[in-house]
């Protein structure tokens, strides 16, 4: 009995350690993908127009990126350790199947790390053209790297590129594994999320400044560039998200049924907004007749899977999946409305909106995008349970047999709390330094004057 308790505790600790380290890192990963693009746009406009405000923005954003890339790199490294430390039952049988995308992702990391070093340190002593061009590999590496890593998570949902014969994994085809059925849609969904998180977070800083009366050209551009990036991504994201969800109807019905909290499968399924599943009964929900079928299959008569069609031992934690899904969709929709409002206003007036409500909403849009993104990850990861590899390997069978994972979980939680606090403090100091107009040194960069 003690043995079982220890094993359960280990599994719980391993799950939560992975969740904490992934949930933290993914925010930095979004910024690693989106922030260089935003900076590239500003830098490019600066060179084209000769307006130094653009280049000022780019330089200040570069200093912020320096901190974010550092924290992102270290929090990402630990994830590759944890794959092996925590989940031998995944990496042992399937490490060779999913190794290729990890390798190619590593190439992306190399390119990002090399060229961010060149961009951050090249302001004074590189030809301007070379300096500007160094941004392109970073942006491209972000686009490529996210493809590769998302293909791995997609594979966990839609395993491909191998066969199981007598319990052995054979006929491994790493390319088929990488280009599995879920890769395209999961990748696009995450890429757009990265641009939305980055765009709304950066724009939010300037939106808040706008509210506090800082409305010079610098803040105007500082808001406009990232906000437009995010606002362009938002409507596309709704379409991609819809496609991603509908794929699940046939591919992962248990996940879909949990997301939509559908207790009885069939046609003419109502949309269940909110509510909780308690003792197999939906409590406290708002039901809109037929809407789930309509959204999911474009027809009220469309068939949707229900929790009643899933065996008990293959059910994910339904309430968590349902609420995280709807939080994501709700926030995503609000962000879409914000983007559409801005777009409409810009189309009519070619100016930034005046309404304080818009600026308050824009100030919070970054946080909303982050919450939506995390909620999305919770939906897909928790929704895949009890499987770590869909219908092949259970999470409980993949976990390490070592005792004491609860201690590494504790260490990670404490360290990451400190890391979060320190990152926020550092970012605030950077922006404070920028406000006072002083020339501040790049984090871990050379001091302003070379000491002789």
């Amino acid at each position, binding site marked *: 009995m003690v043995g079982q308790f220890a094993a359960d505790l280990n599994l719980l600790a391993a799950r939560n350690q992975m969740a904490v380290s992934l949930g933290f890192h993914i925010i930095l990963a979004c910024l690693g993908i989106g922030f260089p693009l935003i900076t590239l746009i500003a830098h490019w406009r600066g060179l084209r127009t000769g307006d130094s405000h653009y280049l000022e923005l780019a330089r200040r954003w570069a200093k912020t990126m320096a901190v974010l890339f550092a924290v992102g790199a270290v929090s990402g490294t630990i994830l*590759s350790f944890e794959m*092996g430390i925590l989940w031998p039952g995944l990496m042992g049988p399937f490490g060779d199947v999913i190794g290729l995308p990890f390798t190619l992702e590593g*190439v992306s990391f190399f390119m990002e790390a090399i060229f961010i070093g060149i961009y951050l340190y*090249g302001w004074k002593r590189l030809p301007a053209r070379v300096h500007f061009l160094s941004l392109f590999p970073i942006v491209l590496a972000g686009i490529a790297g996210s493809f590769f890593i998302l293909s791995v998570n997609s594979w966990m949902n839609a395993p491909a590129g191998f066969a199981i014969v007598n319990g052995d994994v054979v006929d491994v085809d790493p390319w088929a594994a990488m280009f599995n059925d879920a890769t395209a849609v999961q990748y696009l969904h995450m890429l757009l999320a990265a641009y939305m998180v980055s765009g709304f977070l950066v724009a939010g800083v300037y939106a808040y400044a706008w509210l506090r009366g800082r409305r010079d050209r610098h803040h105007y551009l500082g808001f406009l560039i990232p906000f437009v990036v995010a606002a362009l991504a938002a409507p596309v994201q709704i379409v991609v998200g819809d496609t991603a969800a509908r794929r699940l109807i046939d591919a992962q019905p248990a996940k879909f049924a949990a997301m939509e909290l559908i207790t009885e499968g069939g046609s003419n399924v109502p949309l269940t907004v909110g509510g909780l599943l308690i003792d197999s009964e939906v409590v406290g929900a708002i039901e809109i007749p037929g809407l789930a079928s309509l959204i999911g299959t474009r027809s009220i008569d469309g068939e949707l899977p229900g929790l009643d069609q899933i065996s008990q031992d293959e059910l994910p934690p339904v309430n968590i999946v349902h609420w995280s899904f709807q939080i994501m969709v709700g926030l995503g929709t609000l962000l879409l409305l914000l983007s559409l409002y801005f777009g409409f206003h810009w189309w009519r007036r070619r100016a930034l909106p005046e309404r304080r409500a818009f600026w308050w909403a824009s100030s919070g849009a970054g946080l909303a995008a982050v919450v939506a993104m995390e909620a999305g990850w919770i939906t897909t990861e928790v929704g895949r349970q009890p499987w770590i590899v869909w219908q092949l390997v259970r999470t409980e069978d993949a976990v390490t047999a070592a005792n004491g994972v609860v201690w590494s979980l504790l260490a990670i939680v404490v360290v990451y709390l400190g890391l979060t606090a320190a990152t926020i403090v550092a970012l605030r100091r950077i922006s404070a330094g920028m406000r006072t107009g002083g020339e501040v040194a790049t984090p871990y960069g050379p001091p302003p004057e070379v000491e002789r």
Partner: protein
Amino acid sequence: MTLANAIAGIIWLGISAYAVFGGADFGGGIWDLLAGGPDLGRRPRALIERAIGPVWEANHVWLIFVLVYLWTAFPEPFVSIATTLWIPFTLAALGIIFRGSGFAFRKWANTVERQRVYGAMFAGASAMTPFFFGAVAGAVASGRVPLGNAVGDPLTSWINPTSLLGGVMAVVACAYLAAVLLTREAVLDDMPDLVEYFRVRSLISGVLAGLLAGGGIFVLAADAPSLFNGLTSPRGVALIATSALAGLSSLWLLLTRRYLAARPAAAVAIMAVLWGWGAGQYPWVLEDTASIEDYVASDPVLWAMIVAFGFATLLVVPSLIWLFRLTQTRSLGDGEIRKDSTEALMRDSHEQA
């Protein structure tokens, strides 16, 4: 040359690259730790920071490369290593986090006290992380990692003479490499006092590394007889001899103040030790437990990894060479502002505004 051996060779190249580039990085942190108080250590710390700044992130991607190739080509041995040795791995990972973030945050600390805390974090972690990696290497090399999910002892697998030797050697090797490189950096920055400062330290750490390597043979004979036997093979002896020769050359080059040439000599000395370990352990992935041929992934996987390696080489190697060239010609960082630089453009348009 079989496909499996080729992949093992690639992995060993990756370990070598990490040892040299990441190791120099860690070593910089170690000298930062040992630089003394805020006043005494100010100049060495500034030099180290300037040297590491543009390259530290790139230097540590080699680690990811090694891990990924390991778990792709030898998945079962990999998870055996990761689960049995989860404690030193986790500590190394935490060290990496402390190191990178300490380095990044130190600049933004608004009091000297806080700068010292972050600095200590960065520097202390720079000393600890290579120790844990060395301990892991020692564990694998001495056959203390059985196959399976956390089958080995979680403590004695990495707390033993060979692991201790591996850990200490890793730390000293990192310090040695960094000191050699920093002499050259000080030359480039025209700081003769720091040239002498790091020259002395490179000699001390170089001699220490040599003594450890020499004495380590006896430790291995007693604690890791299987590996020791492998080391006495013709290949093993050749590599040990190469290391000794390169190491002695580097010391001579340092003594005669040829800092540029000392760098490759030091790097070869370190790499020869690593390849000696590889030769000694060959043909085992896990000493006496899992051979390369038996536990390697299937051919399609290995071919995919070779294609990926080729692709990586085409993209990454020229880029890395360019990055290092830029640092060595002082084209990155501070200095006289080029007339056609971005900074110059900004100042011009400010003046016009």
